[in-house]
């Protein structure tokens, strides 16, 4: 079994790839992992104890064809049974062209386009209603006049956010205008103005089988984060209502594939602020407490029976740390001149 995984940029702003690869290897050491990398210097390209072979890819913005051809080349030259994309920028292509991959004999396990659109912030209000949770007062704005009206109504501080990416806390009108311009320049419209809600940010990782069944859920609280807001230390929790919301989400939308829900929780009041239609970078945390979602997703992909129990203990901690790997520059040479690393031996 050979599985390609993207997001092997295991840096201070890590992609989920290494967590996914590590989860697969620990469950079944016979699985070969292929790293799909967008930069020759990605740490994953050098971590031969998790990634068996790496290939450099063109950016998704360059179109689907070069990526598809690269995957076909990998299949032909090394072998490839399944691919697990983990980065936001590449998901639209993979989701749109999942049938092409299937025809080429490369399996995926992804939501359909309709499900994928649920992540749009515009849709979170409706989803919250379906899941019977509250949703903060939110206004959709397209120009400065509408922005002014919206912030007057909502008051400061408020959150100014893009439909898919970026969110900033604005404390004044000039700040709100600044963020409005910054986000719309990069990501377009609409821009959303949202009231700030009280509570703790809690996250749930999960996966759905596409038929309404959950493949497992783990809820956590981030204890410390980097300046980019990425988890550094975290702890597992058991918030029954939150887990129920995640289960309802899988059931009601027949979600297919991995996901992460980001919520603000104030006792029993749950507010959904983001749906990420992929594994989060902390995916290995769930694996470490007994819910190996990458392996379960892979099992479902190949119609295998798998352990689908939701059991894990609360109060388990994840502690991220840094570690240095010393290697020879020959590996960089291979990647920089051939676009792929030598196949490493699986140690």
């Amino acid at each position, binding site marked *: 079994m050979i599985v390609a995984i993207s997001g092997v940029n295991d840096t201070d702003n890590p992609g989920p790839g290494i967590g996914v690869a590590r989860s697969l290897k620990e469950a079944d050491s016979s699985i070969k992992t292929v790293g799909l990398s967008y930069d020759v210097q990605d740490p994953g390209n050098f971590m031969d104890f998790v990634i068996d072979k790496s290939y*450099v890819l063109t950016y998704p913005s360059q179109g689907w064809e070069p990526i598809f051809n*690269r995957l076909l080349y990998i299949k032909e030259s090394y072998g490839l049974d399944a691919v697990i994309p983990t980065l936001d920028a590449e998901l639209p292509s993979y989701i749109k062209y999942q049938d092409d991959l299937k025809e080429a004999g490369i399996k995926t396990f992804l939501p359909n386009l309709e499900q994928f659109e649920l992540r749009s912030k515009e849709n979170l209000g409706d989803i919250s209603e379906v899941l019977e949770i509250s949703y903060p007062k939110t206004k959709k704005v*397209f120009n400065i006049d509408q922005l002014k009206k919206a912030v007057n109504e909502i008051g400061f501080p408020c959150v100014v956010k893009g439909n898919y990416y970026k969110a900033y806390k604005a404390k004044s009108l000039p700040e709100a205008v600044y963020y409005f311009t910054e986000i719309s320049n*990069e990501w377009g419209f609409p821009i959303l103005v949202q009231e700030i809600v009280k509570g703790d940010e809690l996250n749930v990782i999960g996966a759905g089988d596409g038929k309404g069944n959950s493949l497992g859920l783990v809820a956590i609280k981030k204890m410390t984060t980097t300046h980019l807001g990425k988890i550094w230390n975290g702890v597992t929790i058991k918030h029954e209502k939150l887990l129920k919301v995640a289960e309802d989400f899988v059931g009601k939308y027949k979600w297919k594939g991995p996901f992460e829900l980001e919520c603000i929780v104030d006792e029993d009041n749950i507010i959904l602020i983001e749906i990420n239609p992929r594994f989060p970078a902390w995916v290995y945390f769930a694996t470490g407490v007994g819910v190996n979602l990458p392996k379960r997703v892979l099992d479902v992909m190949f119609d295998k029976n798998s352990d689908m129990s939701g059991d894990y203990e609360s109060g388990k901690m994840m502690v991220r740390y840094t570690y240095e790997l010393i290697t020879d520059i020959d590996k960089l040479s291979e990647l*920089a001149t051939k*676009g792929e690393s030598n196949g490493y031996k699986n140690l």
Partner: protein
Amino acid sequence: MAIKTYEKPTIIKVESSHSKAGVPMPKQKIRKKIGGVAIDEMVERFGSPLFIFDEKAIREKYRSAYEAFSSRYPNVQFGWSYKTNYLKAVCAVFHQEGAIAEVVSEFEYEKARELGIEGKDIIYNGPYKPYDSLVTAAKEGAKIHIDTFDEINDLEKVADELGSEIPVAIRLNMDTGIYPQWSRFGFNIESGQAMDAVKRIKAGGKLRLTGLHAHIGTFMLDANAYKVETTKMVRLMNEVEEKVGFTIEYIDVGGGFASKNHLRGIYQPPEVVVPTIDDYAEAITSALYENIRGNSYPKLYLETGRHLIDEAGYLVTSVVASKTLPDSRRSYIVDAGVNLLYTYFWYKFNIELTREISGISEPAMINGPLCMNIDVIDESILLPRLRRGDKLVISPVGAYNITQWMQFIRYRPRVLMVTEDGNVELIREREELSDIENREILPEKLKLK
């Protein structure tokens, strides 16, 4: 000793800003032919640069768009948007396929008439229609789409002059959830202005409202906006028929469908973000069926331009020089610039080579021949080392460039059409000095000896 194939010397620093320079991918994009004819041969015969249109591609695109609509809503008519590309040969292909003409100025109106299109087969749009042109259009039975109250006055005067009632349509604007809202054209629906215009026309008694028109924006990536547009238009139609008593014969939903071009500022590639023609057709026709009352189904007009022609047009340009810039990037100077590629300002084009070139790729910039710093066709592209005379094929460039290009310091180049049967036709000759000088008058006293 056998002579080896020369590869120009290339060295690239491995750094994260160009993490893939030097890596033997992306695979070079190669296009050797257009419409089955070798590009190199066309350049050899007709020179460089060259715009080349592929007739077969135009017809196939038109037919698939027509099929997408007519299979859902049979009473449909396309109007070729002249402003998108008014080369005679291009317009003629669309007219042969069954499209009528959609014009936005007296110049375009005259162009359509000159090509042999009858007045009744011309849709006359635009915010300014000179009085004389309104007289001509009314006489010849064109579909006149009114943009302002002033134009209602003008047309009533024309009706008096001609001594007959003139059938007209009005241009509408509305909120379809799209920003910017094109509110400066026509009459607003939500504010009641549109209904006021209808009543004003009725009260005048000299014009007869037969159609409703709108155009909600350009390069629309959200097909659903058309559903909102069509719904609002049909509801207005229902109201007009019921309350004012005009019979609406047609609804013109305009154009704005995107082509497979890569908008600057949008990360995802066009094949991911651009809706298919079926998405657009489904949005529009489903709104028609959901909102039309009774049994009369108005004719649906479409004015899509870019979607039909953009991908059938290519610009072939040749490398004339290359140099290393102080930031270590390479600059290629080519013989076509942004004066020919107006759409450069919002697209990152697809750029292909006409031959495989061995060697590693390096970051490069493609500059046109103008003496202007803005003459940049691509500011960051990975290319193997090109030699003088190597050709770049730039696409899609079929929409708007031929109509918005500028005669700035250079002559505009030849335009070719590769026909369906594989012949190469010259459809616009290269400009020469007399084309430009003919319009100039040098006063006697300024004549130099």
